[in-house]
């Protein structure tokens, strides 16, 4: 078994607002092994992006604050690193691709300007200007952009959405990171372009042996892109399983609700979905945060959080239905 590259343990984060504290992350635990592609699925506002911002230490603070937990990257706690240490992690350790490539690129600099600074500050040693340019063009070629020399001199507005996202991928992979965080990289793209970008990303990740955390709200994308899947609800990981185990046998009532709400190509209508909406983080429900919407809620669900139950070697679920007791 490959060694663990990133391990998030019991991560709690909150945001201070006028009305009080938004208790967003409530003990998130995720681990990524070397070379593994991990998916993180959940609906809008469940804390997926917040978790990843904690990993890169780009959580705006204030108002955000990490109150508890550890984020171990190669065994070292990111939360305890000094400015230089975290700079090194961001440079050649972990890169991120954001959802909206238009917002991620600076409109007043050319693609070349932005790509060369990433290579200049992110790489080990001090490459010459010529080397940097060569590497930047190679990076653009690698993401299958036609006419890389021209795109190098283009501004982001001159490119289409799919091409911009390819530039962002080139930027993220230019420094050969060990871990790539892809935050909904294809949500703003059309389905045929999404297919191209995902295929490209998959190919590059295989070729470089990069580990990936793939954040998305689309179960379909997760199924095609990842080895292991975490399902997140209201700041908790509610289920974690190997890809095929999760899709063959989803366990948590929330995962089941999500799957049934999804329109299928096989037809047969759409189930009623999940009643209610994601809870207010100012005063989240006690116990299991899903109990207010859960069709199978029991008395104990509102009393205390369920412990993670190992259903099998490749399937964990945080739910009382599967025999686990309360968390301490």
């Amino acid at each position, binding site marked *: 078994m490959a060694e663990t590259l990133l391990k998030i343990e019991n991560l709690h984060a909150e945001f201070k607002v006028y009305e009080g504290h938004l208790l967003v992350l409530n003990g998130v635990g995720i681990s990524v092994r070397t070379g593994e592609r991990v998916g993180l699925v959940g*609906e*809008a506002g469940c804390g997926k992006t917040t978790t990843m911002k904690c990993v890169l230490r780009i959580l705006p603070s204030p108002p955000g604050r990490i109150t508890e937990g550890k984020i171990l990257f190669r065994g070292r706690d990111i939360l305890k690193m000094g400015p230089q240490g975290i700079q090194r992690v961001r440079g050649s350790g972990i890169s991120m691709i954001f959802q909206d490539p238009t917002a991620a690129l600076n409109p007043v600099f050319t693609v070349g300007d932005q790509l060369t600074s990433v290579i200049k500050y992110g790489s080990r040693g001090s490459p010459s200007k010529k080397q940097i340019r060569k590497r930047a063009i190679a990076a653009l070629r690698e993401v299958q952009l036609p006419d890389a020399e021209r795109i190098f001199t283009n501004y982001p507005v001159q490119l*289409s*959405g*799919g*091409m911009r996202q390819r530039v962002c991928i080139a930027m993220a992979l230019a420094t050969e990171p060990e871990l790539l965080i892809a935050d909904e990289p294809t949500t703003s793209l*059309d*389905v*045929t*372009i*999404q*297919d*191209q970008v*995902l*295929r490209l990303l998959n190919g590059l990740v295989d070729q470089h042996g990069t580990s990936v955390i793939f954040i998305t*709200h*689309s*179960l*379909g*994308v997760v*199924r*095609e892109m990842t080895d292991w899947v975490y399902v997140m609800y209201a700041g908790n990981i509610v289920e974690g399983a190997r890809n095929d185990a999760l*899709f063959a046998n989803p366990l948590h009532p929330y995962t089941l*609700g*999500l*799957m*049934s*709400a*999804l*329109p*299928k*190509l*096989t*037809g*047969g*209508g*759409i*189930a*009623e*979905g*999940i009643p209610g*909406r994601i809870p207010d983080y100012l005063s989240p429900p006690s116990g299991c945060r899903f109990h207010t919407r859960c069709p199978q809620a029991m008395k104990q669900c509102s009393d205390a959080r369920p412990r993670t139950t190992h259903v099998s070697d490749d399937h964990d679920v945080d739910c009382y239905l599967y025999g686990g007791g309360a968390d301490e």
Partner: protein
Amino acid sequence: MSREILTVDKLQKFFATSRGTVRAVDNVSFSVLEGETLGLVGESGSGKSTVAYTVVGLHAPTSGKIVFEGNDISASVFKRPKALKKAIQIVFQDPGTSLNSRRTIQQILELPLKVHRLGDAHDRKQRVADLLDRVELPHDFMYKSPHSLGGGERQMVAIARALATSPKLIILDEPTSALDVSIQAKIINMLLKFQKEMNLSYLFITHDLSLMRNVATRVAIMYLGKICEVAPTIEFFQRPLHPYTKMLLSSIPVVSPEEEALKPAKIRSEGEIPSPVNVPPGCGFHTRCVEINGCCSQDIPEMLEVEPGHFVRCHLYSDSEDKQGKE
């Protein structure tokens, strides 16, 4: 067979820009039958929203005819009789911007009632309450403003507003694409319920084919301002014909092996939709098509009825002369 409620014939809508003419909608013909849902599917830039806006009257067509229940409504919307405006309503994609943030929900829902003189002042409040009941929102939402509502709830209000005038045709312009799947499920089921109760017709604009499989009666695919395939839903998914349709279907990420089996053999998605300012000659799709022949880059293919009700615009199906041409 139910009667046609909306007929769009050879609709064109061009926009003049400094960089040339954008041929957003180019020779689009379709019809919507009473009580059915026609799914109009396409990528961004295919012109599907322009079709919607032209039908509802936000754009005047460049040429072509729009006929609603026997009335020609292709002239400017200012000349459109109020009764016809009342009968056609639209729900926009983003309820965050389609609801006035400075009005309360009551004011928003009252406006169409006032415009169309439905009920007096006292009666209207009751009607607003009834509308909220219909979309299963509590009555105290009347006094709230849109920004204090969640995305799903806002879209419910937008749907209630569309229902306020008891329309016959509702144009749904990607009503759920900004929402989570669990909320989408709720809204879609509600829309289907209203359709049954009020015998509504929907022109459902979306990019989500899996959703159309479960909602639409017929599906039309748009690419670069033209419709390239129309078929009844089941037939459409069992036997997709146009190469673009096949590319779309094989690009959809799915969650089960059963769905995987329904997708046509993997067609690698290549290239991007060309700019509607520089429409390629011949078939608009030939720049990305895997089954391209010599004539594709020269002649614009005609719409052909390959099976009853199944139309396709592609040279692959045009060589058999016995097939009767349409349009």
